[in-house]
């Protein structure tokens, strides 16, 4: 026999009807026009969701930060100094409002006060988009690889292609990882606005994810292909002469002297088009099919899409206005041209150091010179989009 014990009444908060929903009463600011973030000027007529969650989150003493930054570095610099790149956007040399006893807030009414604040990420990335995008990519890559594994697709690979993938496709993971962490993530503290820093964090995610995609693909191949050496990529990256030129450039990108603009420009404009796409599209993706491999291009292709369709897009949107800047166009062109004169020869030299890789597969890809020409043409086109001339160093 069972009995039901009386329990004391549980203590829980009681719902209360408060009628606190929009439109319940009329009063100043109750109308629809008050239901939008009103502290920034949208890039287009209507503010976007991306702008709502991004713009002004990183404050600026020229705008509303009337009490100024409250923590400084040892040298007295604070916040996000505009001097952390040599590039300039209009207005940056204008003095900040001087505030002190009795000054009031001195918010700059004519906003934006400088051109950096005009930048918007054309991909409109925020947390919702970045998780959806990257989750889709990893699902697709995982499914492609899993399908290949189940259908024994790797058995069709020629032995030379196995060696090529284990060493060279493997070596590329290091590049993506280094750029992801030590260029893009490193720069997400340096940009002048929240829009710049957020997009650099998103770019970093792409790179780190792609590096890990390649590493885990390498792990699958180690498990699936007899004799596949899962550690060969480390040896190739550390010692193969074909990889030392590109490694030198990648490491140099992380060593740029206190200039986020140069790091990003040299990486996404110079390195990616002359070396990244050259290797990923101009070699691996073009030659895989002939060597019995339909899987590697799908893994490589996801990284290529990141760059070609998203990361390059924001980079052009960030830098192109600077060459047309109403105050500093000439200054910026001179800076960009100096960077091109420095980085293009390094990239071309590294590309030529990679040339022997084009001879390794049995089924040959397009000729190295053809791939390089395509990369150079692509690069020249990007420079045109940026409003820059093709540097003479490209002819090397």
């Amino acid at each position, binding site marked *: 026999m069972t009995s039901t014990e009386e329990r004391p009444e549980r203590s829980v908060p009681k719902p209360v009807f408060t009628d606190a929903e929009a439109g319940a009463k009329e009063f100043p600011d109750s109308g629809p026009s008050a239901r939008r973030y009103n502290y*920034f000027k949208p890039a287009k007529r209507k503010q976007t969701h991306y702008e709502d969650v991004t713009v002004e989150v990183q404050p600026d003493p020229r705008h509303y930060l009337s009490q100024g930054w409250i923590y400084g570095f040892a040298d007295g610099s604070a916040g996000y100094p505009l001097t952390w790149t040599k590039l300039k956007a209009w207005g940056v040399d204008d003095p900040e409002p001087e505030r002190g006893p009795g000054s*009031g807030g001195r918010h700059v009414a004519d906003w934006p006060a400088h051109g950096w604040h005009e930048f918007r990420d054309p991909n409109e990335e925020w947390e919702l988009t970045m998780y959806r995008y*990257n989750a889709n990519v990893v699902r697709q890559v995982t499914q492609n690889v899993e399908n290949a594994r189940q259908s024994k697709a790797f058995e069709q690979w020629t032995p030379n292609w196995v060696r090529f993938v284990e060493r060279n496709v493997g070596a590329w993971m290091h590049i993506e990882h280094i750029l992801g962490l030590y260029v893009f993530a490193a720069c997400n503290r340096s940009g002048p606005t929240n829009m710049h820093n957020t997009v650099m964090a998103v770019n970093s995610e792409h790179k780190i994810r792609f590096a890990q995609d390649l590493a885990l693909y390498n792990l699958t191949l180690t498990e699936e292909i007899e004799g596949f050496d899962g550690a060969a990529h480390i040896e190739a990256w550390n010692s193969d002469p074909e990889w030392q030129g590109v490694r030198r450039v990648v490491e*140099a990108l992380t060593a740029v002297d206190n200039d986020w603009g140069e790091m990003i420009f040299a990486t996404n404009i110079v390195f990616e088009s002359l070396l990244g796409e050259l290797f990923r599209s101009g070699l691996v993706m073009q030659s895989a099919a002939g060597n019995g491999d339909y899987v590697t291009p799908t893994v490589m292709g996801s990284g290529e899409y990141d760059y070609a369709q998203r990361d390059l897009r924001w980079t052009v949107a960030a830098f192109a206005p600077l060459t047309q800047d109403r105050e500093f166009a000439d200054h910026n062109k001179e800076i960009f041209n100096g960077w091109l004169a420095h980085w293009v020869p390094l990239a071309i030299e590294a590309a030529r150091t990679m040339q022997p890789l084009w001879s390794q597969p049995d089924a040959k890809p397009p000729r190295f010179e053809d791939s390089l020409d395509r990369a150079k043409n692509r690069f020249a086109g990007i420079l045109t989009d940026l409003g820059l001339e093709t540097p003479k160093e490209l002819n090397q």
Partner: protein
Amino acid sequence: MSRQSLAKAHQKIQELSWEPQYHEPYMKYGTDYTFRKAAKKDPLKQVLRSYFPMQEEKDNRVYGASDGAIRGNMFRQVQERWLEWQKLFLSIIPLPEISAARSMPMLFQAVPNPELHNGQAIQMIDEVRHSTIQQNLKRLYMNNYIDPAGFNNTLRNFHSDYCGTIGRQFAEGFITGDAITAASIYLTIVAETAFTNTLFVAMPAEAAANGDYLLPTVFHSVQSDESRHISNGYATLLMALSDEDNRQLLERDLRYAWWNNHRVVDAAIGTFIEYGTKDRRKDRESYAEMWRRWIYDDYYRAYLLPLEKYGLVIPHDLIEESWNQIWNKGYVHEVAQFFATGWLANYWRIDGMTDDDFEWFEYKYPGWYDKYGKWWENYNRLSRPNGHHPIVAEDVDYVYPHRCWTCMVPCLVREDMVVDKVDGQWRTYCHEACRWTDAEAFRPTYQGRETPNMGKLVGHREWETLYHGWNWADVVEDMGFVRDDGKTLTAQPHLDLDPKKMWTTDHLRRMGPVASPNVILNEMSDADREAFVADYNRQGPAGRPADATS
């Protein structure tokens, strides 16, 4: 995730670790810490192949709940008293979150352990998530809650506000100065490990009790990421501890970070939970009870104390003093009273306390009514414009306080206030620990040791300075805290939205000017200043003037 096990996958991605061969990365952020020994393993063992789908799933739940809240008319049950305080909280919190993202590269450079960089990079991504998901939550409130004013201009208002800048320490402290002090000790070891418990767990629970289940939905999702960040901090702390030269700095930084977090977070979250709620069940935990459980027991006793055996010098005295401040010295009540005193310089409406509230406070904090009850009765009496001034300009036995130069919360526990001349300026501090932070810790030498990477406290740290001599109406207009009719204040000292009961700038014109306590302090003679300090230390509780006979 594919069939590969997570452990195997994580082990594989360690092959990505980079040892520079031709060029060392540019070292932008310095630290005085050294890491010569003991590399630690990445405690997260997280790979992006599983991370992104996991986060997407968490997002789907959050956004599904958001849709449900709107369809289910959640705002018919939301307590306005509660949601008004969210105008302050949700203007502050996206900045600390994005600052935490920005602080991660400081650690890449300062902590020479590539294996840990993976976890730090994932934390960077998490923090972008937190910042934007919180901006989005605020947007939803703005669109659906009865009074959008204050939500719609938070990122302007927060920087101008009478008390908003206090919250900015909880952002700039993460990204400036010594990289380990900022990004590891202040952010991950103290802010995330100790104080996110009250921020992201205790406070959302109170939101739910006030009819708002979206704050818990978003912030519990955020908190599920924090556990990873806590692991990052722990691994870095153990590395730092293995180098004996770091112990002096660790002691300094734990003292600073603990005390500053206590001053800032307990001020804000304590006020939101105790004065923003309508839930006055006697058995619901008070902030003091929550603090004792989440911070004293779970953090101090369970997390910090075991680290003593590794040589960590724990600031036992400051932890006990924090409890003393909350339990015996009424820290949270003093702060709430201050926030309400200057209600007109804020951008949210602050509800007065009722008899139910009084009863609850007296039950939870015996003696509360004798200290604070009369003042809150005056607050109610003066809440509707009726020929009198706002409470800040009326005689209600309240002496307007001086700001603490370090934590920027005013010196509300009057007996603890100290003054010092630092960098050629007389400054008031709410407590000796805050004086020490400015005058001794944030300096290029510490106890005779060179600390060239330590940051410094800068900026116009007293809000009143900028408006010294201004009429209050002009102050409010300058800050932009006015509604769309051009004169009704965004802030109100009550929740009545009847325009006839709302204060306008016309009411403020009759008030006297704002005076900066710090400007006045620096104009005093030595004798006057000494007399001022002696008097100030005899004031309180509840800001009462010093008894002339004592």
